[in-house]
């Protein structure tokens, strides 16, 4: 009973966040790129969250942040889950040195924290949204690969897949045949990856890496912290805390969902 309620709440939260992300221009009072307002205004009827030190309306920026942040998280999660799944099936398909090489690679990403490699990659590449997505996707598939690999190794022994192998089925055929068995695990991993990608994105932005024009929540936190008086004049209440709250709510909702999936 209790489980159902938390699960439903998590779904509702995520869906409404995605809804805001898609339709934010309908709710947004101003254009997020408009910086013609008086800087550092306190919240008022006209500006629900005040304005920042450049004269942007913070509420509009926050709403625009839904689309960019969720977009990056989803795109990176799709790609990394895909890479991870393919790697896992390659492991199960080949079994020889290819398998052990990929396993060594995934272990390497435990030994060197993913985020450090990711930071390295993202800092070297051009500051564009696509590079952020690729950086996250390329270096966060190891967990997917590890877990799906364990699953694939048992699944590949099934008769129908052994049959495909006997008919000299290619990797693609095997992947297609295995998909139905792997699907639940892949879906769980995808949800995990969403939360991970959102965390990584905000971390990158927090380090000042990534497209400076993409106003993600992480970037908002960074700009808020860059403003000198943030902690001393009380502006953090409407400048820093809203994006912080958004990230926390999103990530927690997603992980609640993922753990629920995992239990099933």
């Amino acid at each position, binding site marked *: 009973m209790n489980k159902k309620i938390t699960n439903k709440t998590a779904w509702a939260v995520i869906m409404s966040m995605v809804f805001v992300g898609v339709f934010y221009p309908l709710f947004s009072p101003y254009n997020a790129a408009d910086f013609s307002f008086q800087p550092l205004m306190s919240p008022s009827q006209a500006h629900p969250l005040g304005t920042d030190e450049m004269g942007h309306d913070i509420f509009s920026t926050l709403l625009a942040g839904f689309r960019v942040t969720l977009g990056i998280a989803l795109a990176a999660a799709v790609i990394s889950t895909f890479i991870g799944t393919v790697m896992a099936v390659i492991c199960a398909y080949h079994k020889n040195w290819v398998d052990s090489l990929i396993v060594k690679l995934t*272990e390497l990403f435990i030994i060197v924290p993913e985020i450090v*490699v990711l930071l390295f*990659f993202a*800092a070297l*590449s051009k500051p564009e949204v696509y590079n952020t997505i690729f950086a996250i996707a390329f270096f966060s598939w190891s967990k997917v690969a590890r877990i799906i690999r364990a699953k694939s190794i048992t699944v590949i022994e099934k008769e129908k897949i052994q049959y495909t192998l006997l008919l000299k089925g290619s990797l693609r055929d095997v992947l297609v045949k295995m998909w139905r068995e792997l699907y639940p695990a892949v879906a769980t991993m995808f949800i995990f990856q969403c*939360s991970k990608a959102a965390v990584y994105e905000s971390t990158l932005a*927090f380090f000042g890496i990534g497209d400076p024009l993409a106003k993600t929540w992480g970037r908002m936190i960074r700009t808020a912290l860059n403003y000198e008086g943030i902690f001393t004049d009380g502006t953090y209440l409407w400048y820093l805390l809203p994006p912080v709250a958004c990230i926390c709510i999103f*990530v927690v909702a997603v*992980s609640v969902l993922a753990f629920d999936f995992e239990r099933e």
Partner: protein
Amino acid sequence: MKRVLKSLLYVSLIALLSFALPRLIPGSPLFISDSDLHVLNSALPAETFNSFKEYYAPDKPVIEQLAIYIRNLIHFDLGSSFYYKMPVAEIIAGRIGWTLFLSFVSISISSLLGIPMGLNTARSGGKMGKYLLSFLMALQSIPVFVLAIVFQLLFCFEFHLFPSSGAYTLGINVNAVDFSIDIIKHSVLPIIILVLVELPPIFTLTYNVCSRTKEEPYVEMAHYYNISDSLIKFKYVLKNSLPEILSKMNIQFLYAISGILFVEVVFSYPGGGTLLKVAASSRDYPLLQGILLVTGFYGVTVNFIFEMIIKKVNPRF
């Protein structure tokens, strides 16, 4: 011997990764194009640029570059930082102590709290444990730096309980005692946050492993023999769970390092994290690469040590 070989393999993979990445990513200074090099040349002071060119030798063939790179690594020469204009190895050596300090203290505290907590919760097996578990899981998913910012806001700026930045106050400490107290004061908040982050996985891990060990027939048998509860707890459950806990603690140790880097940035703690921040925001490639290599080397070492310990504790593994 096999372990040594495996560690060596990891080290070489990391070195290869750090060698290949800058050369594969468009837009990085080593993605060889003359115009890029020209821009870099005009942006950096001549001396720095020359040492950069000498170190990476971008005009030589790739194989030769790799050879130079490996030779430099063997001599612990990590190049020279753009930002600090000092050898990277020297800069990192000066900072790494703080990071190791935070890492060992926080991991020790989390293990000393988390393992008994997990053991007791598993032994009592009540609902309490499940709720605690899901709460901790939710906490675990929040980005570390966000947690750190919120704590800093609350305890440094609202209640003024702890200093908000640095590892010590500059210039006021005359004797060793005051200085130590000052250092402890500065490290309390970062350590609390790190413990909050590191505790949940250790707790969950112990809980899961001990719950399984508890169900074993020999533990049940011990109950029938009227062996005292505390003896069962430590001799039967904990002792047999320990190898598995240790083998996964290893991963926690490695994960902890990234958490520490972020907490350091928020609190401007003078360790590797702040260095990483400076390197990332000023696009200081040699320094970034140095940090990547050192983190990797640290990871391999920790991994190696843990494997030795596990082998000692339980030869089966």
